[in-house]
């Protein structure tokens, strides 16, 4: 077993853009297992937080402490964007691409891609151009592409936004499987039902700060602050 890149310790993580603070300061520890779900109103910083953790945002220097060197950390995590980015290639080549980047032979990579396509239910679409897929299929492709390198840590930014119930269910099954096989999942969602179904821990972001966080059961049954309560009730927050 390769040494883990987790836990991740954050100390005073901040993201600024054009002189405005979008996130932070955030201090917390991301432990090595389970699924963490980030919730919060629009503009509370969910996407920024995920992107900052994944290294896509310029943020406070030295705020994040991983358990491995940068190259390992970068190589062992993956990200699924809210609107999946489809390369102008076939479904199979899209899924295989991360393996090709990692130096695998084309034949191997394509075989592995076919396997992953099967797991996410895209077998029938293997040779189709990725960009003609439906929204749900694109999201499944993005998941397969993220999982094919078997990342230790997987980020997902509202993976089921704009998807119908059936696609959402299929994706949740894939995510539950990934968690079972030991992938650490960190995701954001607007769907409280989804949060309850998938989360081990919940983080409530509000105004760019962690307003409240804790294990799922305690969080949903006994929210500590009036804002969390209001948000969970579906009230509008100022």
């Amino acid at each position, binding site marked *: 077993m390769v040494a883990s890149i987790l836990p991740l310790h954050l100390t005073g993580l901040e993201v600024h853009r054009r002189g405005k603070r979008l996130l932070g300061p955030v201090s917390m520890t991301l432990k090595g297992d389970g699924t963490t779900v980030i919730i919060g109103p629009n503009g509370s910083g969910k996407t920024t937080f995920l992107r900052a953790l*994944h290294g896509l945002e310029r943020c406070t220097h030295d705020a994040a402490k991983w358990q491995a060197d940068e190259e390992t950390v*970068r190589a062992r995590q*993956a990200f699924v964007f809210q609107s999946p980015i489809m390369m102008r290639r076939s479904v199979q080549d899209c899924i295989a691409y991360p393996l090709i980047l990692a130096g695998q032979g084309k034949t191997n990579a394509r075989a592995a891609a076919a396997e992953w396509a099967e797991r996410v239910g895209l077998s029938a679409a293997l040779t189709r*151009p990725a960009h003609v897929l439906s929204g749900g299929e694109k999201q499944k492709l993005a998941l397969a592409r993220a999982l094919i390198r078997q990342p230790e840590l997987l980020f997902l930014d509202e993976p089921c936004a704009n998807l119908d119930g059936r696609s959402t269910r299929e994706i949740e099954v894939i995510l539950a499987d990934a968690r079972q096989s030991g992938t650490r999942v960190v995701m954001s969602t607007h769907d409280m039902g989804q949060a309850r179904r998938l989360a081990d821990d919940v983080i409530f972001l509000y105004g760019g700060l962690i307003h409240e966080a804790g294990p799922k059961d305690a969080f949903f049954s006994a929210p500590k602050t009036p804002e969390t309560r209001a948000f969970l009730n579906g009230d509008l927050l100022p």
Partner: protein
Amino acid sequence: MNDILLGLAEAARLIVSFDPELIEITLRSLQVSVGAMVIASAIGLPFGAWLAINRFRMRRVVIALLNALMGLPPVVVGLIVYILLSRSGPFGVLGLLFTPTAMVIAQVIIITPLIASIAHQAIRELWADYHDLLISLNTTKSQRIRALLWDGRRALLTASLAGFGRAIGEVGAIMIVGGNIDHATRVLTTAIALETGKGEFALALALGFVLIALAIAVNFAMHALSRTERSGRW
């Protein structure tokens, strides 16, 4: 008006009779322009992609310069290449002056900025689309350039063809560095200039029509080639 009809008739006659001189200069035109296109693409496409994904201090200046170079007057390029390749010039010992190779060199200089600039535009859009994914996948710079070049190949084909179009129709530079020598460096455009100079408008026009037909044929051929490719559906 009458001259144009005569030109068309003459063009038809030359083509139908497989006129050996016409075939020779047509093939040479193709050889020079395709050679220039291939070399200029090998330089210009990766450079355009590199320019699209890199942020550096002089970037705007380089892009402005590239766009300006697109308008390089071929005669000036021809003159400069002539001076460089002349026996009295720095590369005179190579003995390249008045050879098709010299013509290719001049055309590469003329069309590389054009190809690089169009490639840069196309790749910049694709990069905006791919940016987050390629960063997330922890790609190296050269992996990014390769992915963008491969996935942008349809747009880049257009860039190369634009370069070819400029090359095949160019006369000012290749006239100077090639010398329009019969059976050695005469191509369609220089032959047209020669025949126009003689007042042989019908023949000049006929060659012109052959040139246009050739340009169209090459464009169709390249597009057909790219369409037969399995994953070429977008």
